[in-house]
């Protein structure tokens, strides 16, 4: 029996340092495969309909690199502030598996296209920096389906271009891993490098998890959890692995180096195979693909076509819209949020004045609801145009701030426009100065005592008058405006 003295991640982190490195496999969004002209099969496709002699490993076939894959790899490298290798090579990684028809995978072992890249973000008062050691071009494998006593092989996916993005062991909490993956995913999509459909396996993650006693300098034995295809699964599997390893270390003193799979339904990881001496990939330079020299002019070209990146956006949000650093960095954490924000600003009548208010609404109310309903901003039922409409109504003073929040909640739930909801709730404030003035004049005439009270400094009497105004307008009066008018009328006396 394995002891179960550790029940939660917090338990584990009290005694151990958790260390993780991530390897992401992103399918490159190209029309053709990495070594041949076969179309990439997207989503559901008939089995073995996108297969030729090259990607199914027939004798005598040779790979020729898809130029677009190279360009996109460089694009990603530049976006992640990496160095682009002046000369790249490919290597063969040898292993037998039915979904790998050549008996080796072509990958980049020695001279990958990108090295020394990084990802950074603001974290409370410090900066998180994750080192991305290398990005390499490689090929995806085929797919197998398992039946009672046989398996079927479909090679449509074989030869789909992949970028493998490998970090240093710089993660110490699952939250950081998730932030990193979300940011990387956003950049890949934003730059059109990867379609990014997680359910289709466009973006898959392997996590290397190890524990070491608190403060120890040497890392513990790691286990690799392979093929995670959602952010939630990454988080869950890390937590599961941490607890599993902590309990093993406690009860047996050691963890075996293993490759494990995560079972979504059960939320547990399972042993796939133990790493041993038999695990010898015998890498050597791919003789069919000579070195490619990357001209600096090519890199410059790609750099000049690179769209705005998160850090640049953050600076622009501050200078163009006057957002503070904190708000700007929260908005620039995802391109989808930036798009939403800028769409709002475009829809507003007075961008200079509205930008800050829009940011405020997005970061408070909208985020709160998205979180609560577990939705991404792109799926928000409240569209930018409607949010701006709500903010303008609020600014015009027709409804109170409290009412605006209520209206927002209904917009989110019922997908109705703010004006519809305000009308149906009867929230519209009376801001007609003439009407309020005549009501107040009558009240002053009819309540001399209360008026005296105000004049002698009894502030509570202001409340009396406003309360009466509300009563007579059925609660629709703009209280602020009414108060101002009352003060004016008294002063005039």
């Amino acid at each position, binding site marked *: 029996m394995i002891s179960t003295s550790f029940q939660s991640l917090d338990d584990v982190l009290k005694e151990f340092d958790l260390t993780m490195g991530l390897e992401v496999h992103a399918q490159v969004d190209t029309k053709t495969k990495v070594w041949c002209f076969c179309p990439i099969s997207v989503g559901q496709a008939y089995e073995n309909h996108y297969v*030729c*002699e090259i990607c*199914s*490993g*027939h*004798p*005598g*076939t*040779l*790979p*020729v*690199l898809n130029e677009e894959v190279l360009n996109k790899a460089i694009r990603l490298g530049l976006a992640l502030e990496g160095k682009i290798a002046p000369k790249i090579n490919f290597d*063969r990684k*040898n292993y*037998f598996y*039915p979904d790998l*028809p*050549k*008996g*080796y995978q072509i990958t980049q072992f020695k001279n990958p296209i990108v090295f020394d890249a990084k990802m950074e973000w603001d974290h409370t008062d410090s900066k998180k920096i994750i080192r991305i050691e290398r990005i390499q071009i490689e090929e995806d494998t085929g797919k197998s389906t398992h039946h009672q006593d046989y398996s079927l*092989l479909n*090679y449509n996916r074989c030869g789909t271009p992949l970028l493998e993005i490998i970090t240093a062991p710089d993660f110490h909490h699952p939250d950081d891993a998730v932030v990193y993956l979300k940011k990387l995913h956003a950049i890949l999509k934003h730059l059109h490098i990867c379609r990014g459909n997680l359910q289709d396996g466009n973006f898959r993650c392997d996590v290397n998890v190890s524990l070491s006693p608190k403060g120890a300098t040497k890392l513990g034995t790691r286990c690799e959890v392979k093929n995670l295809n959602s952010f939630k699964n990454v988080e869950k599997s890390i937590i599961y692995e941490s607890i599993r390893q902590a309990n093993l270390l406690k009860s047996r003193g050691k963890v075996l180096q293993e490759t494990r799979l995560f079972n979504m339904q059960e939320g547990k990881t399972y042993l796939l195979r133990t790493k041993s*001496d038999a695990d*010898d990939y*015998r*890498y*050597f330079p791919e*003789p*069919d*693909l*000579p070195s490619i020299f990357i001209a600096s002019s090519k890199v410059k070209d790609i750099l000049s076509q690179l769209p705005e990146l998160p850090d640049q956006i953050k600076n622009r949000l501050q200078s163009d819209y006057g957002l503070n650093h904190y708000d700007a960095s929260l908005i620039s954490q995802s391109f989808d949020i930036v798009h939403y924000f800028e769409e709002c600003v475009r829809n507003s009548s007075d961008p200079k004045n509205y930008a800050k208010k829009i940011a405020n609404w997005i970061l408070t109310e909208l985020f709160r609801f998205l979180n609560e309903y577990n939705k991404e901003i792109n799926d928000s039922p409240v569209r930018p145009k409607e949010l701006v409409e709500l903010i303008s109504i609020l600014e015009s003073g027709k409804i109170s701030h409290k009412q605006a929040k209520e209206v927002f909640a209904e917009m989110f739930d019922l997908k109705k426009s703010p004006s519809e909801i305000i009308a149906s709730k009867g929230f519209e404030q009376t801001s007609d100065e003439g009407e309020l003035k005549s009501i107040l004049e009558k009240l002053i005439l009819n309540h001399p005592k209360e008026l005296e009270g105000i004049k002698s400094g009894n502030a509570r009497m202001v409340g009396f008058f406003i309360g009466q105004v509300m009563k007579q307008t059925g609660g629709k009066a703009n209280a602020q405006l009414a108060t101002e008018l009352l003060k004016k009328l008294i002063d005039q006396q």
Partner: protein
Amino acid sequence: MILELHEKIKSKKISALDLIKHALKSIRSHQKENNAYISILDHHAELKAKQCDEWLSVKGNLPNYLHGIPFSLKDLFITKGIRTTAGSAHLANYIPPYDGHVSEKLQSSQAVLVGKTGCDEFGMGSTNENTPFGAVSLPGHPQHVAGGSSGGSAASVAEGSSIFSIGTDTGGSVRLPASFCGLVGFKPSYGVVSRYGQIAYASSLDQSSPLAIDVSDIAVVMEELSKSDPRDATQVYQSKHSWVDVIKQQTGKKGLQGKTIGFHPALWNSCDPEVQEVGASWMKHFQSMGIELVEIPMPSFEHAVATYYLVAPAEASANLARYDGVVYGYRTPKTPNLESLFVKSRSESLGEEVKRRILIGTFALSSGYSEDYFAKASKVRRLIWNDFKNAFQKCDFYFTPVCASTAFLKRQFNKIPMDPLKDYMNDIFTIPVNLAGVPAIALPTGVSSQGLPLGMQLIGPTFSDQELLAFARNLELELPIDHGAKNHWKDFL
């Protein structure tokens, strides 16, 4: 000879069908004794020949020198819809779904394929005995081998059943059988002929190489073979001049005078006396024709065999991993699990020598040994390249034997027990050429006292292919070179 035949066909003095019928007749009378062919394509060939003749009568012109010329292909070349075995039981029933570069180019030039020729399994051997399809005899000498691995190709030309043949030369596999059979064999520089559709043995050494009766025919064939092919990333050479034009500018002695040829006595000392004698007599001829001889040592050659037998098997171990019985080829009937599917399918269908080389190569790349074996050999490979580079600063071409002896006796007639290492030593003069990727030509020099043909080798610098052929052509015209196989076609000339 092809240019002469071409004129005859063009002027309708002979027909393509006559030539093909003659070729097929030769196959029928020699196949039993020589076993040059694995597949004989008589119906295909007659049909094609008729189409050739029809073309001429309809269009009145011939677009290509090879129109109607019978040829054979080593069974290592992929031919769409025509069984391609690589001389292996594993691919005994393999019918390629695509066409390779060599087959495509030659057939579209309307040369007529008469058959697929025997070879050592996957090109591994120098005797053509390492194949379940049976050894190939040296025509006229049933106790001797035709040489290997392209033995069937050489025998087919020597027996008069094809006018030229394409073999593959990885360590001498075309030059050696050419020399044993009294033919011209030309290994182009690495990167001249596309390897697409050439079943790989060792990718950085393999090169498609023609065998023919004279140098002029080699040039005619090279015109087609050297056409650029975007499907092979290592095919980097493009001819600037027509190969036929180069040959047509025969200058005889003028083209020879003033050239410098390098050689070294140390390379000749270990050869059979008759080989030494022929070498010495050629060198005398050289001098008499105004060619300067310079002694240039090649110190790295002593390591060439060891280097080759680490590098080639290493690449082969990966190239042959695809023969696992999954997508095509032999599959063991008993497949209780995945491991045994792989192990048994491979072990039951691959030959002894192939397994031996896979083992050597796997070892040379394996963890703990790859530095001392594969990496070390790759460094020595650079030394061999350097030796050639330095030599070609002092000479135009380098002169060596092709083999230390004439054709070997078949194993069953040979009293000395089989020793793979000793067999490997036969390749000492041809191997350095492939390791350095330089071009070389084997030229017939006549026969030994036993009546066995002999060959000499001229090596040129990288991409001097056309200069080397022009020089060899001039030599051919000036020297007493025996073109015995020409006699088979005398009725057509």
